């Protein structure tokens, strides 16, 4: 049975202790980081790609990269008490890299003969396909927005980051995030009509 739920909010309380343990290269801390934020990274990746399969890969890549980051350079102290913006910044980079690779794969597959169709009618798969289709429809509505405005909506409304945290992920000033949201909101009513 598959239940459809939105991702849970991160646990109450800061991540400072966890962050310090990661800086000390404690593998168990990586497990704890995963427990706290795998759901948020997964939801962000699904909404960003419209694909559960790609999102699963992105979750794995994000946490592997996060661990490597602590091994390469000390990322310094935790900002704003939460590791979520830092992880979403890594996820965003991973998704960008995988998007390029996927584009190349899609072009390759389009050149191949059509495969035989073997649909799976199980309830779980059907629900997942339904969800993915819904997300793709929403993304199609968003597609008319410039990429930077789309990303801002994904982070602030969908990943529920604060303006300050979204600014950290996007590498821009908080004012810029607010301006992008404001511009996107002005355009959204028209976009919704067009995609109904």
């Amino acid at each position, binding site marked *: 049975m598959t239940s459809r739920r939105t991702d849970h909010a991160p646990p109450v309380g800061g991540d400072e202790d966890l962050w310090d343990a990661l800086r000390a290269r404690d593998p168990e801390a990586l497990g704890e980081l995963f427990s706290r934020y795998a759901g948020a990274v997964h939801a962000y990746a699904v909404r960003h790609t419209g694909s559960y399969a790609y999102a699963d890969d992105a979750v794995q890549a994000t946490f592997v990269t996060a661990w490597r980051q602590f091994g390469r350079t000390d990322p*310094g102290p935790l900002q704003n008490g939460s590791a979520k913006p830092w992880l979403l910044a890594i996820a965003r980079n991973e998704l960008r890299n995988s998007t390029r690779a996927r584009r190349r794969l899609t072009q390759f597959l389009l050149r191949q003969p059509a495969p035989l169709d073997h649909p799976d009618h199980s309830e779980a798969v059907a629900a997942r396909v339904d969800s993915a289709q819904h997300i793709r429809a929403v993304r199609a509505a968003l597609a008319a927005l410039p990429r930077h405005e789309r990303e801002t909506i994904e982070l602030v409304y969908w990943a529920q980051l604060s303006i300050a945290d979204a600014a950290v992920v996007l590498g821009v000033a908080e004012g810029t995030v607010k301006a992008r949201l404001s511009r996107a909101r002005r355009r959204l009513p028209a976009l919704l009509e067009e995609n109904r």
Partner: protein
Amino acid sequence: MNLTTPPPVEQLDPEYAADLKQELVRKARRQEQPRSHRRVLFTWVPIVAAVTAVAISTASVVGLSQSRGGPAGPAGIVQLPADQSPQQTLENGLAFPPEIDTAARECLTPKKNAYGYPNHLGNPEAAKTIRSARWIKIPGDLPRLHLTLVTRPANVWYQCLDGEFLRDGVVLEDRTWYNEPVRGTWAWSTVDGEARASYSFRTDPAVTRVELRIRGTEGASPWFWVNVEDSSGYVAAALPGAEAQHGRSEVDVRALDENGKQVWAKTFG
């Protein structure tokens, strides 16, 4: 359809999540294990090296005292007691607002590291409090502006040199979590025929002064020193005719308290 509402997403499959978590932790542990072995090895290397050094040093001293009558290090590096080197300050006065503002903004602007990620999460627009700003003389080079500041409201402490980010951390008040009274980063290079070394650091509140000298095969530099301000600082030295290379030079760093008593010392190189 409301685009400001997150589209519902199926939760990450619990079984897949549990497997993935286990796999991540297992791989992370495996990566750390050889490191731990290396740590054990590295724990022994200095001990073995020290014992060997003492043995060689003793033999050299005996040998040299019979021939030339002067002490020398195991690899020909001059061994000089700390109190026999003269002292020279690097303090070069306070810095003032226009220079401070420019350096602070530059330092708080993240730069991309070799992997394309920002080297810190600072923001040049952030409100900040300057904790210390002074000019440090650099032997063999131009003076540099050493700056410490705290951003608000995140309360992150930054150390910068000429607008370059050195390190950040939490604000330390009267306590420290360090195991040692001084913690920092050293660097050296050979420039224009002279060895140059530097050390940027944070200290325990008890430390008031940090000194650095270079010892080469032909001689040693004075102790170049700076006062500790905001529990931090940057100290540098140069030794003409020396090479910044393992076995050719060594860098001594030491910390003194307000009574001039040495509370910490380390040798690099």
